C-alpha cells in the first residue's frame, strides 16, 4: 500500500498537465472538478498510504523514482521519504487542498481564467507535495521554489491590476532572499556530509562540528524566514492577499507558509548539534514576529489583512515552538492553524463573495443573519484561534507556551501577551463583521463616495484598497443582484463546514493530559524524539498553564467586546497609526528599495555606462583623436617630409654610433 506513494504527487501533476494542455477546452466548471478530483484522489491515496505506513518499520518508507542529476560526488534523486513527519504533512496538505479546490469551484465561478486557476492550484499541490515528500534537500528545494512560483502566479492571478502584479513579484523576490539562505545551507550540508539526502546525513548530525551545524541551520533558517514570513521577510505576506481568497487560504495560511516550519522540524537533529544561541535566535525571531504581527492586526480594517497578519503571528508561534524545542508542538499548531485559518479565510472569502467584493470590515456588520453558515463556521475558527477551550487552537497554542515556559519566562510572557492580542483582534474582527449593526446597507453609497475620494487622492491607493475592488469578472456574474448580501453556494459552504469541524476537534490529536492522548507526539517521536525538549509537567503545572491561557483568551475577547460591541473605549485609541502602518517596516523597506537601493543600482548601471563602456569608447575616441593629431604631421610640405626623413636618419645614426667602441 505504501508503494502507492508516488501516486500522491502524480495525481495533481496529471491534473496540472491535463488542465495546462486542455484547460481552455474543458472550461468551467469541469476544469474545476478535474482539479478537485486530482487532489481529492491524492488525499485518498494518502490515507491508504497512511494505513500502509503503520506496518512499516519505524513508520518510515522511502522510494526512489530515478536519478535527477549527479556530477562528481554530488548526486540527487527524485525520491520520496515517507516518515511520520512527511505523512502528517501530506495528509493535511492534500486534505485541506482538496477542500479548497472544491470551494474554489464556487468562488471562481464566472472568472474568465477559471481553468487556469485550477491549473495553478494543481501545480501548487504537486510542488507542495514534492516539498514535504522529497528525500533530499534539493528536491525539497524544488518544491520550495515550485510553491513560490505558484504563489507568484496566483497572487498576480488578476494581473490586470498593477497592484496584484506587484504583490506577486514582491512575494517571489522576498522569498528568493530566503532561497539564498536555503541554497547556501544546502551547500554547507553537502560540504559537511557529502550528501544532501535526509536519511543519510541527519543520523550523522551529532558528529558534526558545532559551528558547521550552526551554519547549516542558520542558513536554512534564513530560507524558512522567507517562506514562512518571519521578521524581516514577512512583508510579502500581507500583500499576497491580493490573490483570490482560496489562494490566501491554501497557500498563504494553511500550507506553503508553513514550509519553513516543516524544514526546521525536518533538520531538528542538526539544530540539536548547533550552538546553543541558535535556538534562542529562532525562538526570538518567532516570538517577535508573533507579537509584532499581532499588534499590526489590531489596526487593520481589511478583512483579509487581519487574517494575513494573524497568519504571520501564528507562524511566529510555530517558530517559537521550534526554537524552544517543541517540534511536535510546532507541527501540532501548524495542523490546527491550517484548519482554523483556512476555515476563516474561506469564511472571509464567503463574506467577500456575499458582499460583492467588499473587503472593508467597517462596512460590514450583522452578517450572521444573512450568512448563517459562514458566520457559524467563522466563529468556530475564531474561538479556535483565540484559544478558547476546547477548540483546537487552545491546545496547540498552550502546548507551545508550555515549551516556551520551560525555556524562558520572558518568551512565555511575550507569548501570553500575543495570545491576548490574538484573542482581541480576532474578536474585533468577528464583532465588526458578524455582529453589531449592519453597515452594508449604506456601504454602496459609501463606496461611491470612496471612489470619488479615491480618484482625487491617489496617494492612498494602497494595496489593501486596490485588493478591495478585485475582479471584474466577478462583478459581471453578480450584476443585477440586489444590495443584500447572500449566503454562498454549497460548493463553498461544505468546505467551510468540514474545516470548522476539524478546527473544533483537532485538539484531540494531541491532548496534554496523558501520554496516551498525545497521539501526535508519539507519532512524530521517531523523527523529532531525539531533539525534542522533554516536558514532564505535573498535573498542577498543567492545570495552571491551561487556566492561564484560558483566562488570557477570555480577557482578550472581553476587551474587544467592550470596545467594539459596547463602545466603552474609542477604538481609535487602540488602533494606533503605528500598528495600522505595520510599524512602518514595510514602507521603510519599500522606501529603501525604491530610494537608496534603486539609487545604488542606478549608480552601478551608470558605472557600467560611463566607466566600463566609456573606457571602451574612450579608447576608440583616444585612438581617433591621437590619429587626428598625428595627421597634422602629414602637412603636405615636401620640406617637412624631408625633415622627417632627416631626423629619422639622424636618430638611427645616433643609435648606431652609440654602439661604436672607440677603443
Amino acid at each position, binding site marked *: 500500500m505504501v508503494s502507492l506513494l508516488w501516486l500522491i504527487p502524480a495525481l495533481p501533476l496529471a491534473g496540472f498537465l491535463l488542465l495546462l494542455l486542455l484547460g481552455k477546452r474543458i472550461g468551467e466548471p469541469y476544469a474545476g472538478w478535474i482539479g478537485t478530483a486530482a487532489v481529492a484522489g491524492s488525499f485518498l491515496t494518502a490515507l491508504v498510504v497512511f494505513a500502509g505506513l503503520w506496518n512499516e518499520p519505524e513508520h518510515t518508507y522511502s522510494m526512489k523514482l530515478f536519478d535527477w542529476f549527479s556530477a562528481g560526488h554530488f548526486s540527487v534523486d527524485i525520491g520520496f521519504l515517507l516518515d511520520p513527519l512527511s505523512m502528517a504533512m501530506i495528509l493535511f496538505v492534500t486534505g485541506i487542498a482538496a477542500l479548497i479546490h472544491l470551494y474554489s469551484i464556487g468562488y471562481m465561478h464566472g472568472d474568465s481564467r477559471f481553468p487556469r486557476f485550477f491549473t495553478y492550484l494543481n501545480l501548487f499541490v504537486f510542488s507542495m507535495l514534492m516539498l514535504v515528500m522529497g528525500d533530499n534537500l534539493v528536491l525539497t528545494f524544488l518544491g520550495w521554489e515550485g510553491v513560490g512560483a505558484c504563489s507568484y502566479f496566483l497572487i498576480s492571478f488578476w494581473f490586470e491590476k498593477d497592484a496584484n502584479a506587484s504583490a506577486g513579484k514582491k512575494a517571489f523576490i522576498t522569498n528568493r532572499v530566503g532561497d539564498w539562505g536555503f541554497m547556501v545551507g544546502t551547500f554547507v550540508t553537502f560540504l559537511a556530509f557529502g550528501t544532501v539526502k535526509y536519511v543519510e546525513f541527519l543520523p550523522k548530525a551529532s558528529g558534526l562540528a558545532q559551528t558547521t551545524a550552526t551554519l547549516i541551520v542558520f542558513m536554512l533558517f534564513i530560507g524558512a524566514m522567507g517562506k514562512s514570513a518571519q521578521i524581516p521577510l514577512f512583508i510579502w505576506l500581507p500583500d499576497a492577499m491580493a490573490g483570490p481568497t482560496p489562494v490566501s487560504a491554501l497557500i498563504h495560511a494553511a500550507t506553503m507558509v508553513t514550509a519553513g516550519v516543516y524544514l526546521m522540524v525536518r533538520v531538528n537533529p542538526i539544530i540539536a548539534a548547533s550552538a546553543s544561541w541558535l535556538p534562542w535566535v529562532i525562538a526570538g525571531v518567532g516570538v517577535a514576529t508573533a507579537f509584532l504581527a499581532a499588534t499590526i492586526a489590531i489596526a487593520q480594517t481589511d478583512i483579509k489583512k487581519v487574517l494575513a497578519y494573524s497568519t504571520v503571528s501564528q507562524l511566529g508561534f510555530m517558530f517559537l515552538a521550534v526554537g524552544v524545542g517543541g517540534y511536535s508542538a510546532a507541527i501540532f499548531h501548524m495542523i490546527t492553524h491550517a484548519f482554523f485559518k483556512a476555515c476563516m479565510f474561506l469564511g472571509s472569502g464567503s463574506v467577500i463573495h456575499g458582499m460583492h467584493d467588499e473587503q472593508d470590515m467597517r462596512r460590514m456588520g450583522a452578517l450572521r443573519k444573512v450568512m448563517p453558515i459562514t458566520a457559524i463556521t467563522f466563529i468556530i475558527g475564531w474561538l479556535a484561534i483565540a484559544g478558547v477551550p476546547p477548540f483546537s487552537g487552545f491546545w496547540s497554542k498552550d502546548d507551545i507556551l508550555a515549551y516556551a515556559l520551560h525555556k524562558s519566562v520572558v518568551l512565555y510572557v511575550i507569548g501570553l501577551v500575543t495570545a491576548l492580542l490574538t484573542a482581541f483582534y480576532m474578536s474585533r474582527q468577528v464583532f465588526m463583521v458578524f455582529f453589531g449593526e449592519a453597515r452594508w446597507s449604506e456601504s454602496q453609497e459609501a463606496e461611491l463616495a470612496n471612489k470619488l475620494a479615491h480618484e482625487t487622492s491617489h496617494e492612498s491607493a494602497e494595496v489593501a484598497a486596490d485588493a478591495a475592488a478585485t475582479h471584474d469578472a466577478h462583478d459581471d456574474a453578480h450584476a443585477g443582484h440586489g444590495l443584500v448580501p447572500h449566503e454562498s453556494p454549497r460548493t463553498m459552504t461544505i468546505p467551510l463546514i468540514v474545516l470548522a469541524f476539524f478546527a473544533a476537534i483537532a485538539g484531540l490529536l494531541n491532548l496534554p493530559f496523558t501520554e496516551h492522548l498525545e497521539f501526535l507526539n508519539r507519532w512524530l517521536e521517531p523523527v523529532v524524539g531525539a531533539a525534542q525538549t522533554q516536558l514532564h509537567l505535573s498535573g498542577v503545572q498543567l492545570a495552571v498553564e491551561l487556566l492561564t491561557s484560558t483566562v488570557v483568551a477570555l480577557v482578550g475577547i472581553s476587551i474587544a467586546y467592550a470596545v467594539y460591541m459596547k463602545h466603552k473605549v474609542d477604538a481609535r485609541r487602540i488602533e494606533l497609526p503605528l500598528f495600522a502602518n505595520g510599524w512602518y517596516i514595510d514602507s521603510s523597506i519599500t522606501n529603501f528599495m525604491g530610494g537608496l537601493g534603486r539609487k545604488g543600482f542606478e549608480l552601478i548601471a551608470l558605472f557600467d555606462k560611463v566607466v566600463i563602456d566609456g573606457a571602451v569608447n574612450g579608447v576608440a575616441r583616444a585612438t581617433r583623436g591621437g590619429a587626428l593629431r598625428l*595627421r597634422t604631421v*602629414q602637412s603636405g610640405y615636401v*620640406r617637412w617630409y624631408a625633415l622627417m626623413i632627416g631626423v629619422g636618419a639622424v636618430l638611427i645614426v645616433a643609435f648606431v654610433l652609440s654602439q661604436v667602441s672607440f677603443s
Partner: protein
Amino acid sequence: MSPNLPLAYLALSAILFAIGGVGLLVRRNPLVMIMCVELMLNAVNLTFVTFGKMLDDISGQVIVFFVMVVAAAEVVIGLALIVAMARRRPNANADDLRLLRG
C-alpha cells in the same frame, strides 16, 4: 699625402653632404632643391674617391661614374617634372604643392 689628408676629404664631403641636405630642407625653389640633391650625390662621389684612394682600390673611383650617370638621369626626370608643373602652375614653389596632405 699626409696621413690626415684623407680624413679631411671625408670631412669635407660630409660637410658638403650636410649642406646639400640642409639646403633641401630650407629652400623652396624646386630647381634649387634638385641642385641640393646633386650636391649631396657629389659629396658622396668625393667620399668614394677618397676611400678609393685610401684603400688603394680602383673601384671607388669607378663607382663615381655610375653615380654620375644616375644623377644625370635623375636631374633629367626632375627637370621634366618641374617643367610639366610650371606649365600648369607658373612660379609655383615647393611649398605651394600642398594639394595632397593629411
